């Protein structure tokens, strides 16, 4: 076990800067009268530029871990250190700021705002970051960046379309573009292909891989698909509330 732990925190060649570290993370849920513990003293270190896949069976707490690391949820106890700060100690507003400027999220069900078109959905992160004046003064730059991202993902002809007019793969690419809009340090992907057919899923994985390889984007992805997980630098398995290195 100790050996496994050392492997979990071991430096990866050429990527030695620790970006995010998790230590002694506990999280449980109350279901009626019973308490279900999903994370039981979990540890993890994420290096800058790493692509980590976390796999595990349904209900093992993969998404919960991702949400806690991404400051969307809170743990019962434990430390999540990012940029020399314990996320668990941050105020609600500071956590929101972190989600807006440092982290990006891609969800299984895309989660796009139905009233906004593709371009607006991508720009929403920038809108959250800036005040009205700030946004308007940088409007053309921000718009240019959003369009560039959408172009990168082959959606340049879909700018004015509403999410309901897009295919699943297109929606997920819009979601990735939105997550990347504010240049996040860490991209959290929660079952990004879980709602897509095999071919489209492969395309989305291709997009993530490309981001990782060409732009050294740090990605933490949760999946239950071992084949997809293998495309990451490191594959970890969440089992009994703790992470282990995957054995292939």
């Amino acid at each position, binding site marked *: 076990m100790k050996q496994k732990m050392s492997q979990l925190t071991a430096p990866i060649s050429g990527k030695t800067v620790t970006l995010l570290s998790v230590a002694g993370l506990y999280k449980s849920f109350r279901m009626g009268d019973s308490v279900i513990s999903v994370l039981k003293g979990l540890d993890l270190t994420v290096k800058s530029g790493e692509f980590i896949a976390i796999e595990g069976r349904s209900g093992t707490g993969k998404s919960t871990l991702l*949400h806690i690391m991404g400051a*969307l*949820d809170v743990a019962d106890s434990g430390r999540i250190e990012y940029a020399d700060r314990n996320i668990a100690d941050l105020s*609600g*507003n500071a956590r*929101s*700021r*972190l*989600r*807006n*400027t440092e982290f990006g*999220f891609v*969800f299984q069900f895309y*989660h*796009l*705002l*139905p*009233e*906004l078109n593709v371009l*607006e959905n991508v720009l*929403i*992160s920038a*809108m*959250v*970051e*800036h*005040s*009205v004046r*700030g*946004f*308007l003064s940088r409007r053309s730059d921000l718009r240019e960046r959003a369009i560039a991202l959408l172009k990168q993902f082959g959606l340049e002809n879909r700018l004015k379309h509403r999410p309901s007019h897009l295919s699943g793969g297109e929606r997920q690419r819009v979601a990735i573009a*939105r997550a990347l809009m504010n240049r996040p340090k860490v991209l959290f992907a929660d079952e990004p292909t879980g709602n897509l057919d095999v071919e489209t899923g492969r395309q989305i994985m291709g997009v993530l891989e490309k981001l990782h390889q060409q732009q050294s984007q740090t990605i933490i992805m949760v999946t239950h698909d071992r084949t997809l997980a293998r495309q990451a630098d490191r594959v970890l398995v969440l089992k009994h509330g703790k992470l282990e290195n995957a054995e292939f």
Partner: protein
Amino acid sequence: MYKLHLIFKYLRKRRIAWVSLLAVTLCTAMVIVVLSVMGGWLRMFRASFHGLTGDVIVESRSLTGFPFYQQMLGDIEKLPEVEAAAPVIRTFGLINIRNVIRDGVQVIGFPIDQIVKVNDFGASLNRKKNHPSFSLYDDVPYELIPPANKDARKRPGMIVGAGVVGIRKDGEGKLEVPPGLYEAWASLTLLGISGEGSGLDVGDKEVTPYWIVDYSRTQVWQYDSKTVYVPFAQVQKDLHMDAFGEEPARTHDIQIKVKPGIDPAAAKIKIKAIVDRIVTEHDISFKYPIAVETWEESQAMWLGAIENEKSLMTFLFGLISIVAIFMIFCIFYMIVQEKTKDIGIVKSVGATNAGVAGIFLGYGFAIGLVGGGMGLGVGYLIVRYINELHTWMGRALGIVIWKPEVYAFDTIPNTINRTEVLVIVAVAVVSSVVGALVPATRAARMNPIEALRWE
């Protein structure tokens, strides 16, 4: 920025928002219409009744009237606070106009050149608006009008209330003046009022022939439908209230106008002192009870009733506002419920709790502002054209809501008070924000993960 953007999008794309917008619009328009009409009614009531009397009234408590009014008038007019004063006699009589209209009427007698300095009677006239008088017209051949009489031109002139001779608005809202009105004779039968004993002398009636020289339209139904105006000296003589032997001449009222900027209540004290002095001087307090009142005190019963109505109205509008707030609360609760996933999404990209609350409060504010603005427009149009609308409803649908005999005026008030309207729109905005407050707080407190998982 995202708050403004989402508010604008929700306002445009969410049809349920249009329901709340419609609700706010209708509530605002309704309150503006009702408050303008009822408030306008109260203002018209005050203005009209004040316009028909002086600021201060020396009033007899009996039909007998009171004597020494000339002495009182002389002393009152010398007061620096007083602009003008006029004696007025009020009684009842039977009128016969050309043997066509026979009716019981209120008869008001005053020196017209004096009364127009005291109140707004002159403005209610038609042909003699600019030169109010009871004088006959040079171009009317009174001597030749049957029953022809060579002394016809010696008869006094009479001004009739518009309703007495059947002047009413037609279907288009225009006044219909009967032909030959200015060549019509009228005889007025009055009963003498003795200065002694019971007052009315039923065995001593006076029938005086008059010529109708104009009609008065004060817009106060009670006056316009049942009142005729005649020269003071004539009615005083017919009622036997003129000086006779030892008996001094009498009047019923003295109406007094105070100078601009003078408080009638303050002037009343000085006027009362004069009246009391003269009453004491002639020792007539027991025989001729006299009251000195401001016009508001004189009309206290009417004004009090309307003030009560206004209080009731305010209470009802309070209830309406609560209903509106509750309605907006329900709609916003539904919107928040429906947009739960959106709340999770915007929180996942970094929106704060306050920011999420701001979206829904801003949404409520926008609905209040747009709905209030639209309600103001609709309300303004309805109030502006309410008389035309009412006339059309009466003609096309047979619905008559505004009855002059009930509301005292033959036209529905159609003026909008700016301050009232601003308050109403402000209340609409505040109500919308208050209605959105609880749902917005609920949205702000939502856990982003639970919101994202919400189905």
